[in-house]
C-alpha cells in the first residue's frame, strides 16, 4: 500500500491493476460488515464476485453519506466521527472512523506528502484556530487540520478564537524560525482571506527562506471574488511562499488526497484513483472528456467509502506524464455540478438557521 519509492512511483497501468484488487477486497469487506451497504449492492443488482475493471467497481453517490449512516464497525470500535460542513439546508455527511482506518489515513497522507516535503518536519503555520472536537465529532476542516498537523512541528495557529489573525504572534514566530524553510497549511478561502489578501500580507510579513504552502477546499469563494489561481500564487510569492500546492480531497476519503502537480493538474496517489462518468447516464467516459469525478481510495475499512461518485465535474488530462516524473493519473476539477432547480412543498420555506 505504501511503496518505498513513494506515492508516485508506480506506473498507472500497474497501479490500477493493484488498485482494482484492493477495491474488490473492500467491496467484499464492507458487504460482509455493513448490512446497509449489502442491501444497496443487492438493490443495484451488483454481480457477486470481483469486478473485472475499475468502472465496474460499485460506487456510492457522495450525498448518500448525508442521508444515511453507513458503518462497517460496531459502535464500540468508533474512534471518531467526521462531518462535512454541508451546503446550506443540507444535512452534513457523517463518516465513522475506527482506529485502523484513522491510522491508514494518517500514514497515507504522510506517504503522499513525503514526496513534497521530504522526511524533515518543518516548522508549520496553520491558517486556522486549533481544532476542537464538537459534540457531533470533527468537521471536515477540523479533520484536515488533524491530518496535516503531524507533518510539521512547532505549530503556530494563525487564527485566534473569534477568527482574527494574530499578526504580531506570527511576526515573533517567523523571527524565531528564520533559519529554515517553513510549511504553511490551510483551507484555500481562509488562506486567501487572512494570509495572502489579509492582515498578514498587509503587515509585510515574509518567510526568510523560500517556503511551501499547502491548501485545499473549494475555490468557490475565491472565484466569486474573481481570484484566479495565478493571482493566488502571485500573492503567495510576495510572502516568499515560492511553492504552493492545492489539493483535492473530501471528508469521505480523508488521507487520500490528490495534490497539484508542478504544472497545475491534480495527481492521484498510489492508494487512490479517479474515473470520469457522464453526468446524466453515469457511463464511464474516456480520458479527456468532462464529467462527474468518481474517486477511489483503498483506505476506508470502517465505512464503505472506497468508491465514491462526487458532484464535482472534472477531466482526466494525462497519465504518468508529470513534468516532475511522478506517476499517476492527472486530472483537473472544473467546479460543482449545477444545483437542481426543483423545489418542493416540504423543503421550500424552511426558516433560515
Amino acid at each position, binding site marked *: 500500500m505504501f511503496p518505498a519509492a513513494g506515492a508516485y512511483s508506480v506506473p498507472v497501468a500497474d497501479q490500477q491493476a493493484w488498485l482494482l484488487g484492493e477495491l474488490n477486497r473492500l467491496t467484499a469487506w464492507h458487504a460482509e460488515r455493513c448490512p446497509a451497504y449489502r442491501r444497496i449492492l443487492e438493490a443495484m443488482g451488483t454481480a457477486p464476485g470481483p469486478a473485472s475493471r475499475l468502472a465496474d467497481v460499485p460506487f456510492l453517490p457522495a450525498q448518500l453519506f448525508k442521508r444515511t449512516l453507513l458503518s462497517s464497525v460496531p459502535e464500540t470500535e468508533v474512534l471518531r466521527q467526521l462531518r462535512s460542513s454541508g451546503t446550506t439546508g443540507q444535512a452534513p455527511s457523517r463518516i465513522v472512523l475506527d482506529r485502523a482506518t484513522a491510522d491508514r489515513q494518517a500514514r497515507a497522507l504522510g506517504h503522499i506528502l513525503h514526496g513534497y516535503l521530504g522526511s524533515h518536519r518543518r516548522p508549520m503555520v496553520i491558517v486556522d484556530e486549533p481544532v476542537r472536537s464538537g459534540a457531533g465529532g470533527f468537521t471536515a476542516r477540523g479533520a484536515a487540520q488533524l491530518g496535516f498537523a503531524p507533518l510539521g512541528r512547532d505549530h503556530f495557529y494563525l487564527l485566534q478564537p473569534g477568527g482574527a489573525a494574530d499578526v504580531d504572534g506570527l511576526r515573533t514566530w517567523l523571527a524565531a524560525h528564520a533559519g529554515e524553510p517553513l510549511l504553511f497549511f490551510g483551507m484555500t478561502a481562509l488562506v486567501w482571506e487572512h494570509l495572502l489578501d489579509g492582515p498578514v500580507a498587509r503587515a509585510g510579513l515574509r518567510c526568510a527562506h523560500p517556503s511551501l504552502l499547502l491548501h485545499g477546499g473549494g475555490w468557490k469563494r475565491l472565484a466569486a471574488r474573481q481570484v484566479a489561481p495565478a493571482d493566488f500564487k502571485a500573492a503567495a510569492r510576495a510572502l516568499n511562499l515560492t511553492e504552493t500546492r492545492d489539493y483535492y480531497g473530501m471528508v469521505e476519503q480523508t488521507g487520500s488526497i490528490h495534490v497539484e502537480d508542478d504544472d497545475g493538474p491534480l495527481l492521484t496517489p498510489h492508494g487512490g484513483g479517479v474515473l470520469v462518468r457522464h453526468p446524466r447516464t453515469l457511463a464511464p467516459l474516456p480520458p479527456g472528456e468532462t464529467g462527474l469525478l468518481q474517486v477511489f481510495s483503498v483506505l476506508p475499512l470502517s465505512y464503505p467509502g472506497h468508491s465514491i461518485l462526487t458532484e464535482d465535474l472534472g477531466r482526466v488530462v494525462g497519465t504518468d506524464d508529470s513534468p516532475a516524473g511522478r506517476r499517476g493519473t492527472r486530472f483537473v476539477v472544473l467546479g460543482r455540478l449545477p444545483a*437542481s*432547480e426543483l423545489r418542493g412543498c416540504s423543503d421550500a420555506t424552511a426558516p433560515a438557521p
Partner: protein
Amino acid sequence: MNLLLPAETPADERFWTEAWPAFAARAPLAPFAEEALLFLDAFAKRVLLDPALRVQPTFATLAHWSRRGHLQGYAPLFAARPGAVRAARGVILHLAPANVDTLFAYSWFTALLCGNANVVRVSARSLPVIAPLLGTLRALLAEPAFAAVRERTLLVSYEHDDALTTRLSAACQGRLVWGGDETVRAIRALPLPATAIEVAFADRFSFAALAADHVAGLAGAELARLAEDFCNDAFQFGQKACASPRVVVFTGTCQACAVAAGRFWPALSTVVRDRGLLFAEADGIARLASALAMAAAVPGARLTVRPADGAPPLVLAAPTWQPELRALHDGAGFFAQLDLPALASLAPLLTPRDQTLVAAGYAAEELGDFARRLPARSLDRIVAPGHALDFEPAAWDGRNLFEVLTRETALP
C-alpha cells in the same frame, strides 16, 4: 420587504405609516363578490390568450381554474345556513411555498373569492418562475375596473424575518401557512391576534394504487393515456408537490402485478421521453441517492427500473411494506413500488401523513369500502389519474377553505 403587487415598490416608512394601516382597516368584500369573479375571469382570459403564458402547463391550469365558468360551480358553497349571514373574515396573510410555483395564486384567489383582503408572501426563490404571471396581474390591477381588488391586495417578498411576519400577522384575522413541518412550527411560534384563525399545511405524502388486472388489460392507447395522466400527477412540479405520488402500489396476484409493472413503467418512460422531461443532471444524482438511501433501509428491495439514459423513472421495488418507504425523498422521478394482494391491504398501512391516493382500475364500491377502512385522519382525497394536483378549495387537506376563510353571523 418588497411590494410586488399591486405595484412594484419597496416598502418604505410611508408604506407602514399610511398604506398599511389603510389596507388593514379596509372593509372586506362580500363572499363570492362580482368584483372578485370579474377580476379572476379577466386574469384567466389574459393568461389563456398570451402564447408565452399558456404554454406553461401550471399557468394554463391556474387560468382554467380561475375562469368564471369554473368558479361559478362553487356558488352554492357560499350560501349561509338559514338564519345566518355569511361574511369574509377580513385580512388574510398567506405564506406561500417556494416550490409549487402557482400555489400562492390559488391560496390568494380562494381567499379573494371569500371576500377577504390578502397579504401574500412569496419566496424570492419562486420569483423568476412567477414573474410573467405577476406582470399580468400588475397590469390588471392597474385597471380602474379592478380597484376593489387592488385595494385589497398586497403581494410581498422578503427573506425569513420573524419580526416582519409578526408585524403583518398583527393586522390579520387569518393566516394560511403552506410549507413543511419546519415552516409550520416556526410560523406557529409567531403571535397572531387572539381572535384570528390559522390554517397550516404540513408535510404530506401521497400514493398511487393501480389495479394490476386493469393495467394488464389496457389497450395501447389507454395505457398511454394512463401514463400521461400519471406523468402530470408526478412531474408537474418535479414530484415535489405533496400530492404527487411517491409510492406506487400494484394490487392483484404476484403474476398480475409483474405484468402490470412491466407495462406501466415502460409506458411512463415513453411519456417522459416524448415530453423531454430529463430533469437536471443534479436531479439524477439526487434521485439515485434517494433510491440507495431507501434501499439501505429496506431488506430485499431491488432497483427494477433504471433507464440507461439516466431519465426517470427510477423504481425501487420493495418485497413488503416498510415505514422507510414513506421517506420524504427528493422526488425528481424516484418511485418505490409495492405489490399488494388487494386495495384493502393498503388501508392499514396509511397514516395521518398520507394525503392523496391516485387510484386507477377500481370499482366505485371497492373505493368506498377502502375509504371506510382507512385509519383515522389518513388520506384526504382519492383521485383519478391526472387529478392529483387539482386544487380543490372545498376539500383541501380535509378542509373546506371557503368555510375556513369566511364566518357566519347568526341572526335572531
